[in-house]
């Protein structure tokens, strides 16, 4: 598809999605440019998936402007979808078919020839490290393998834009790293990725730029690093107490940290020098069960912006 370099691949202004009285997406603006890895970070129910389904041209916007690859999703939905790769939140693989058949049948939906599809299936299955399982049925595959197959399938039409809705939710850490590794390679090849996630480490690993979503709105935008610099401190001290601390830590905020967040299970002290803050805790005569000094993450950005954690425990 011919899209000039300056035109964003996705252009959204005042985008709204309503389901009856529920406002899932409440007027968001964003642009995604060619070659970028763009993320929507937010907890469940923030409106990420609804946004993805509008970008995927399966769910029409309730209001606002949306243009994908320079086209109007309402009018040119089929033409746009012909150039999208979609990895949905829930797998839509055909369990009765083999791994290779899944890629080929999906490719047929795009009108590609069987001969060409056999070639592409071999190539893609090798890319996602499933070439040895090509003739096995899908059902017995592990969750991570199914996810990688979904990714292979989404690439069969050589998409201009790859949409990944929570690509690693539900996978064990090793399987997640395998998926991230493949997505990182795609990024290096210049693919444009749009992904949603509620894992801050996923956003940090993969996204060049991201928006933080909460309750249908965008609350911040930037690169992972920019967001951390803007909304958090360099380091964080996490304290866990066996019992309630004998006095209110927040009265000591000036001497200890720039900001204190008290969560039900732990207390977070935001500071530029974690070790110095940890030392001060002991000088104050406090005896937490555990003290952990770590770098700030997007989780801290989200907590600061919304007062809530990303993954509800």
């Amino acid at each position, binding site marked *: 598809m011919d899209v000039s370099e300056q035109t964003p691949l996705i252009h959204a202004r005042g985008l709204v999605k309503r*389901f009856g009285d529920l406002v899932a997406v409440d007027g968001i603006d964003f642009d995604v440019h060619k070659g970028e890895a763009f993320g929507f970070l937010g907890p469940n129910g923030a409106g990420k998936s609804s946004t993805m389904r509008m970008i995927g041209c399966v*769910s029409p916007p309730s209001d606002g402007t949306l243009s994908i690859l320079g086209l109007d999703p309402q009018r040119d939905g089929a033409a746009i979808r012909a150039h999208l790769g979609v990895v949905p939140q829930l797998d*839509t693989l055909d369990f009765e078919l083999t791994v290779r058949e899944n890629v080929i049948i*999906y490719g047929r*939906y795009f009108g590609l020839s069987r001969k060409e599809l056999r070639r592409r299936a071999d190539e893609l299955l090798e890319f996602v490290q499933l070439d040895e399982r090509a003739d096995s049925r899908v059902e017995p595959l592990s969750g991570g393998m199914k996810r990688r197959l979904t990714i292979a399938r989404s690439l069969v*039409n050589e998409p201009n834009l790859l949409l990944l809705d929570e690509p690693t939710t539900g996978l064990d850490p090793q399987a997640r790293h395998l998926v991230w590794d493949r997505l990182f390679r795609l990024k290096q090849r210049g693919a444009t990725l749009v992904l949603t996630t509620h894992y801050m480490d996923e956003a940090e690993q993969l996204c060049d730029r991201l928006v933080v979503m909460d309750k249908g709105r965008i609350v911040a935008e930037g690169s992972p690093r920019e967001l951390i610099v803007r909304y958090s401190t360099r380091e964080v001290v996490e304290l866990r107490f066996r019992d309630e601390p004998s006095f209110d830590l927040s009265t000591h905020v000036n001497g200890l940290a720039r900001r204190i967040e008290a969560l039900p299970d732990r207390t977070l002290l935001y500071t530029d020098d974690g070790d110095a803050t940890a030392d001060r805790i002991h000088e104050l005569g406090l005896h937490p069960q555990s003290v952990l000094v770590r770098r700030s993450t997007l989780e801290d950005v989200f907590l600061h912006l919304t007062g809530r954690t990303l993954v509800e425990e």
Partner: protein
Amino acid sequence: MTAVAYAFRSYEFWLAYYRRVWRGSIVSSFVNPVFYLAALGIGLGTLVNKSAAPPGGVTYSHFVAPGLLAAAAMQIGSAESTWPVMGSFKWTRSYYAMASTPLGAASILAGHQLFVATRVLISATVYLAVIAAFGGIHSWLAVFAPVAGLLTGLAFSAPIAAFAATAESDTAFSTIFRFLVVPMFLFSGTFFPISRLPVALEWVAYATPLWHGVDLCRGLVLGTAHGLAALGHVAYLLAWIVGGLAVGRVTYARRLQR
């Protein structure tokens, strides 16, 4: 034209899926007619033929066989558009896979119905072959009986698919079978002429798509079909098909957009 091409792309998915299960379904579409015709024709038929003048002036097995062809078409058409349709939205989610490609709601529905049509046509053709083996064919018009069966099957599958696209659970499907499919099977002229029914019920039977399918098949196989009546049957069955597809297009689009 693209809409037709798209429908065939979705049809290919169903064929790929069918390649894994076709052996079992071919066996049952062969065994069922043999069992039914043996039990009803040879078993029950010998009693019927002795006790009274057989309906339509033919032996009972020859009378009941074309009706069974139409009834089997109804059952396959209904079954293929209940659980498989809801399952493609809820369980396998294969409709959503298609919807993320250039295929739209109309071609997704049409592709699946093309597959149901294939299933019904195969079953009706096997049925006709079994009827021929039992010596039940009285007219060359019988070659059109599988087409009549096809129309009968689709007259059920199209509206039922439209409904199944709105279903959240399969409880309604048992209701469809218990209160629509089974009563039609028993009372729409498959086993006895509907003129034997009380007058009020006879009119109900006239309204059922199955009676039109049964009467059409019987007319073709026994060679008693009247041109105008046959056209009327075809038109009535087509109306259910077209209506079902029109509503299905809307219910499919709504479900996919949610």
